[in-house]
C-alpha cells in the first residue's frame, strides 16, 4: 500500500506510477481495440501471408501487418510499432512535448540481423558472379550501394531512431533477455526512478520478427504449435492438447514517473509498478529447473520488492506460452508460492489470443494487467476445449468474467533462463 503523503513506497523508495501506456498486437492498434477484442475472447492468430509457407510445419502466427510499411524487415516493423506506442503513451501522459521526453529510454528490442531478402539482394548484385558465398556478399557491400542497410540493421538502430523521434535523454539502453525483455525494460525504468536518476522514464518493448528464418528456427526446436487449422485455435495454454507457442508480433510502451513528480504536475495516474523480481536459471538452455526454483524465486522476489503479501494478489497474468513444459512448470511454481490458494486464484494467459510476442511480451502483458485492474474484467484463456487434469488452475477458461482486481502478478520466463516478474496495482491508496 502506498505510504500516502510522502509519496514513497513501503520500502522508503520513490513510488513508481504509470501515467501513459499503449499496446499494439495482432488484435489491433491501441489499448481500446486490443482490450475490446481481448475480453471478447478473440484471437489475432491467422495464416501467414507475409512469406510463402510451403513445406512448413507451422503456417500460422500473430503478425502485425497494418503498420503501412513500404517493405518488411524486423527492425523496420519493430521500430514502426515502438514509435507508435511510445507516441501514444507520451501523449496520454501529457509529459514533455512530442519531440522531447524528460527522461531516458529503455528499449527491449529483438536480436535482428540482415535477412534473406537483403542477403539475396547483395548476392545478386551485378558484377560479382565469379565469387562465392560471403566473398560475393562483401564485394557487393564494398560498392557502397547497400549503405542504407547499415543504419537499419545495427543492433542500436531501433533505439537510436526511437530516441531521436521521441527526444529521450541520455544514452538509449537496448536490452534483450528473450521472453523476459519487456518486463526487464520496465524494471530498468523503475530502478532509475527509485535511484533518483530521473523523475520519468520511457520503457518500450517491441518485436516484429516473424520472418521465415525465425519461424523455421523455432520450429526446428519443436517449440511451435502445429495446430494450423483453424489458426485461431493454435494457441492453447494450459490445455491438455497444447503443442507449443505461436510466434507473434507487438509492442508495448510505458511512461513511468515518480509518484511525487506525477502528483506535482497533476498527471492522471493509471497504475503503479509496485515491484519487480528477476532470477537466472542455470539448469538448461531451453528447459526450466525441474523444481521451478528460479521461477519461484523470480515471483517471490517481485512480491518482496513490492512488500506485497501473496494474499493481496487478485490475479496472475501468466507467462502461459502453451508449451507442454512451461505451462506445467508455471502451475507447479505458482503452487509453491501461493499454496492451496493456487486452485482458486485466477490465472490466465493473454498468449492464448495474441500469441507469444517474444521481446514485447512482458510489456504488452503488463499493459493488459493494468487494463484488467481498471476494468474489473479477467481476460480469458481461450481454446480450452480439453482442460489438463494435471494443471489445477482457474485459467478463466474460454470466457472473460468480471472480478474486482486490485493487484496483479505478471510473469515472463525467457529462453536461456532469464526470468522476470512484475507486481502491478491500480491507483495508489
Amino acid at each position: 500500500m502506498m505510504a500516502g503523503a510522502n509519496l514513497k513506497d513501503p520500502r522508503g523508495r520513490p513510488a513508481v506510477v504509470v501515467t501513459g501506456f499503449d499496446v499494439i498486437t495482432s488484435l489491433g492498434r491501441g489499448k481500446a481495440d486490443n482490450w475490446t477484442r481481448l475480453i471478447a475472447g478473440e484471437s489475432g492468430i491467422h495464416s501467414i501471408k507475409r512469406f510463402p509457407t510451403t513445406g512448413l510445419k507451422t503456417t500460422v502466427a500473430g503478425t502485425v501487418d497494418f503498420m503501412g510499411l513500404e517493405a518488411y524487415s524486423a527492425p523496420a516493423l519493430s521500430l514502426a510499432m515502438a514509435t507508435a506506442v511510445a507516441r501514444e503513451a507520451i501523449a496520454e501522459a501529457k509529459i514533455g512535448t512530442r519531440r522531447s521526453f524528460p527522461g531516458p529510454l529503455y528499449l527491449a528490442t529483438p536480436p535482428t540481423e540482415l535477412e534473406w531478402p537483403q542477403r539475396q539482394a547483395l548476392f545478386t548484385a551485378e558484377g560479382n558472379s565469379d565469387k562465392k558465398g560471403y566473398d560475393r556478399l562483401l564485394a557487393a557491400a564494398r560498392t557502397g550501394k547497400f549503405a542504407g542497410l547499415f543504419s537499419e540493421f545495427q543492433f542500436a538502430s531501433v533505439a537510436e531512431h526511437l530516441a531521436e523521434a521521441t527526444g529521450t535523454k541520455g544514452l538509449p539502453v537496448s536490452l534483450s533477455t528473450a521472453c523476459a525483455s519487456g518486463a526487464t525494460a520496465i524494471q530498468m525504468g523503475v530502478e532509475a526512478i527509485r535511484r533518483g536518476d530521473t523523475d520519468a522514464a520511457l520503457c518500450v518493448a517491441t518485436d516484429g520478427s516473424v520472418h521465415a528464418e525465425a519461424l523455421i528456427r523455432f520450429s526446428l526446436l519443436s517449440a511451435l504449435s502445429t495446430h494450423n487449422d483453424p489458426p485461431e485455435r493454435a494457441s492453447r495454454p494450459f490445455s491438455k492438447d497444447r503443442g507449443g507457442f505461436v510466434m507473434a508480433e507487438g509492442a508495448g510502451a510505458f511512461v513511468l514517473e515518480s509518484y511525487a513528480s506525477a502528483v506535482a504536475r497533476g498527471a492522471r495516474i493509471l497504475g503503479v509498478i509496485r515491484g519487480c523480481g528477476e532470477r537466472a536459471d542455470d539448469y538448461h538452455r531451453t528447459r526450466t529447473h525441474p523444481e521451478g526454483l528460479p521461477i519461484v524465486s523470480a515471483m517471490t522476489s517481485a512480491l518482496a520488492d513490492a512488500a506485497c503479501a501473496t494474499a493481496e494478489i487478485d490475479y496472475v497474468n501468466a507467462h502461459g506460452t502453451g508449451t507442454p513444459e512451461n505451462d506445467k512448470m508455471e502451475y507447479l511454481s505458482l503452487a509453491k508460492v501461493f499454496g492451496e490458494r493456487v486452485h482458486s486464484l485466477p490465472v490466465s494467459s493473454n498468449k492464448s489470443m495474441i500469441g507469444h510476442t517474444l521481446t514485447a511480451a512482458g510489456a504488452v502483458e503488463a499493459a493488459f494487467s493494468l487494463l484488467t485492474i481498471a476494468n474489473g474484467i479477467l481476460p480469458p484463456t481461450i481454446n480450452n476445449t480439453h482442460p489438463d487434469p494435471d494443471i489445477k488452475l482457474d485459467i478463466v477458461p474460454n470466457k472473460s468474467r468480471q472480478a474486482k482486481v486490485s493487484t496483479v502478478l505478471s510473469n515472463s520466463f525467457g529462453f536461456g533462463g532469464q526470468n522476470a516478474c512484475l507486481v502491478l496495482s491500480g491507483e495508489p491508496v
Partner: protein
Amino acid sequence: MEMRDSQIAERLNETPPSKDRVAWVTGVGIVSSLGVGAAAHWEALSAAPVRRRVNTSDFAPYPVFPLTDIRLDDQIPNKADHRQMGRWQQIGVYAAGLALADAGLKGAPELLAMTDVSVAAGNGERDAGADANILKAVTAAPENAGALNAALQASLRPTLYLGELSNLLAGNISIVHGVTRSSRTFKGEEQAGVAAFRDAVERIRHGTSQSVLVGGACNAERWDALLSMEVGGCLWSGDPATVRQRGDAGGGIIPGSVGAFLVVEEAEHARSRGIRPYARVGSVAAERLDLPALPARPGEAAACANPLLRQLAQSPFDILSGASGAQPALKRELSWLAALDRAGLSRNVRHYGDVVGHGLEAHFLTGIALASISLSRGQFIPPFDEADEPANSSGSQRILVTGFGHWRGAGAALMAPIEVAA
C-alpha cells in the same frame, strides 16, 4: 506449501538504498590476441614496442586481431557445453570464468548465487557455409516460392539458433559457472558495453547488487560480422595501421577478437571477504550523441553539474581511448579530448585498439579491464611504441576510459586507484 509472508520479506537483501556505496573492480578476466589473463596482458603491454598479432590473410582484404590460443576445458570443463555454443559464446564464457576465478568467486556457490550477470552482446555466428548453400539454392530457382523454406530447413542445424541468440551468452554463463542472481543482456554495439558497465556500477552504488559479473566478447574472425560492418563501409582494408593513421586516411575499423569480463563489487563486501581489488570506479557517463562539453573557463569544471567533469577536474589523469578508427567518430572524440588537454586536465592518451583491435560490444569493457590492471600496478600503460612520449609514472594515477561508438553513442568512465578518491 505456501510461502509465508515473513519468508517473502526476508528473501530480499534488506540493506537500505543509498548512493554512498563504492564500486570496486575485484576480478579481471581478459583474453585477446595478446594472451590470456591480467598478468599476461600487462607483460605484453610492457614490452615496447608492443608485439601486435594481426591476421592479414584469412579474412583478406580485412586485417583482424585473432584470439590467442585457448584451451576451452580450462574454463568450460564439460565438452557437451562447448558444442552448445558458437565461438563468440565460448570466448565470453571462457573470459567470464577467468574473471570469477580471479575474484575468488569460483567454487563459492553462496557468493555466485548472489552475483548478478550483466552482458554486452551482439549476435552469435551464422553458419557461413549454410548461408552460401542457401543463397545458391534460391538463386538457382528464383521462380520456386518454396525454395527458401526448403533450403533453410535442410541447412540450419536446430541448436545453432541457441548459439546465435544474444541472451544465450549470459544464459551459458549461468549454466557453466553457476552465476544465478539476475541476468541482463545489453545490445547496441559499443554502447552495449557502456550500458552494461554503468548498470552494474549503479546497482552496486545503490545497494541493489552486491557483486556483478559484467562483460562481453567479440569474435572478429567471422565473415557475417565483417559483412555487417562493411555494408556501412566501416572496415579498414589493406595493411594494418594505427587508429590515428586510419583516421587520417578517411577512417576504418580493424576488429579484434576479445573476451573481457570484470567482477564489480561493493567495497565493504569485498573488504569483508579479504579479496585484493584492482581499482575503484568513479563516474560513468553515457550519451546518445556527445559527452558533455567541458566548460570553457578554467575552474568551471570543478563546479559544473556533470559528475564526470567534476571528478575529472580534481586531479590529473591519463586516457585509455576506445576509439575504433571509424570517422567521424574519431574526430568527435579527439575534439572532446582536446578540450580536456587544453584545460590542463589530461596527460597521456593511448588508443588501446592499436594493440588488441576493436571489440565492439566488448571494447569498452576491455578498456576498463586494462585500466584496472594498470591502476593495480600503480603505473599507466607504457607507450605502445618507442616513438611515443614516455609514460608519466608518478605513482597513483587515474585513468579515463572512453567509448565512442563507430556509429552512435559516447561513453566514458573514470577509474581510480583504491586509496585515492575518484
